[in-house]
């Protein structure tokens, strides 16, 4: 139900501002994505660099790193997720209030990266929590993290507030709680959450 763009511009020239609740709502959401203050490995250093004056994450309204998951909107998985750390990461994600987003930053957070076959390395955090944006790189440049922010903002902007693809927090039927894996005798149990991560098809 977006207003006709040409009409809006024409009205704007006449001093009339037209918008929709959806646009206003999404504009508010995308312009104040507050990340959680938490870093896992070397990617966190690049994340910190992104917030500093040179790259200036504040331009996107995302400079307020919150030390509590209750106040954060975005979780940046910045680094290797070890199997020892994975339950804590999922628990922190569960503690965040909706609407919440996840950026998997770097090769390790996506797939385990260079440490993939390690005995204590999770093969990607998307096995347990839904990831909105994946950024490859080892580590990704601050520009890449900014690109991820812009991609996330576009994604938020494109969401409609009604209909089947409405955001999770507006759909009372969706489950916002993701099971925390248990640390078993040999591996995490279960090794992945199939509802979040249905086995991707291997293309040859």
């Amino acid at each position: 139900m977006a207003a006709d763009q040409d009409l809006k511009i024409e009205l704007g020239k006449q001093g009339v501002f037209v918008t929709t609740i959806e646009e206003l709502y999404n504009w508010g959401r995308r312009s104040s994505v507050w990340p959680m203050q938490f870093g896992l490995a070397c990617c966190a250093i690049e994340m910190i660099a992104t917030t500093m004056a040179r790259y200036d994450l504040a331009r996107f309204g995302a400079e307020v790193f919150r030390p509590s998951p209750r106040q954060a909107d975005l979780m940046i998985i910045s680094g290797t997720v070890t199997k020892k750390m994975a339950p804590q990461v999922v628990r922190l994600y569960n503690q965040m209030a909706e609407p919440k987003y996840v950026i998997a930053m770097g090769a390790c957070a996506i797939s385990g990266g260079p440490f993939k076959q390690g005995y204590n390395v999770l093969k990607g955090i998307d096995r347990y929590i839904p990831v909105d944006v994946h950024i490859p790189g080892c580590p990704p440049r601050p520009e890449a993290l900014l690109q991820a922010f812009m991609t996330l903002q576009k994604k938020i902007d494109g969401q409609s507030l009604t209909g089947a693809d409405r955001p999770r927090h507006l759909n009372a039927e969706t489950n916002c709680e993701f099971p925390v894996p248990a640390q078993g005798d040999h591996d995490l149990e279960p090794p992945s959450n199939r509802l979040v991560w249905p086995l991707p098809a291997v293309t040859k």
Partner: protein
Amino acid sequence: MKTAEETKAAIEAAVPGAGVTIVPNPSPSAQHSLRLDPSHAIAVAKFLRDDEELSLDFLSNVTGVDYLDKEIAEKVKVTRQVAKTVDGVEQMVEETVEETRKHVEPGYLEAVYHLFSMKKKHGPVVLRMRTANRTDKVELPSFTPIWRSAEFQEREIFDLYGIVFTGHPDLRRLLMWPEFKDHPMRKDYLEPDDFDYEPTAHDKVLERAKVHQGSSGGQQGAEAAR
């Protein structure tokens, strides 16, 4: 600085019956190490730290090594009585036959310590200790009471190799979670079977990923999970 032989002689003079053996290093570095008998190891370590000439006051590194059980095949010549027909008459003839005999040499776990002296500016002196086997007799004396820097490194070896350091003040797992049962750096460690999605598999990973392909893996598996 003393050579390995001189250090060995000094130890044996100070600690009677210490049972030190030299493990030679054939590489150009010639960094020979001293293998200690675990029952005298604490006395030897105290001597190495407190001796005026050696004064090895700094333990820089502790690590573990895993040696698997070795099956050794030997060829032995055996003489046997064999019945044979010679010129139509049955006779017992002696014959030498080659036989291969196999015996299993039990494996062991090893802790390796690298010592330096800050006072005398020399080092390293490399110490080794071996456990009796890899399964139930895996105790070694802890050097943490002598060199404090051994604490975390011995915990790590306990975690990853399963050597139990007796006399360690706080022997818990360091890297893996407390419920974890295996020792991942052992050579016979088998990682859990989570090779169901390997888009760029090769070598050993490919072998393990192949099990999942077909009926349970790939597209069909994804549909079944949905």
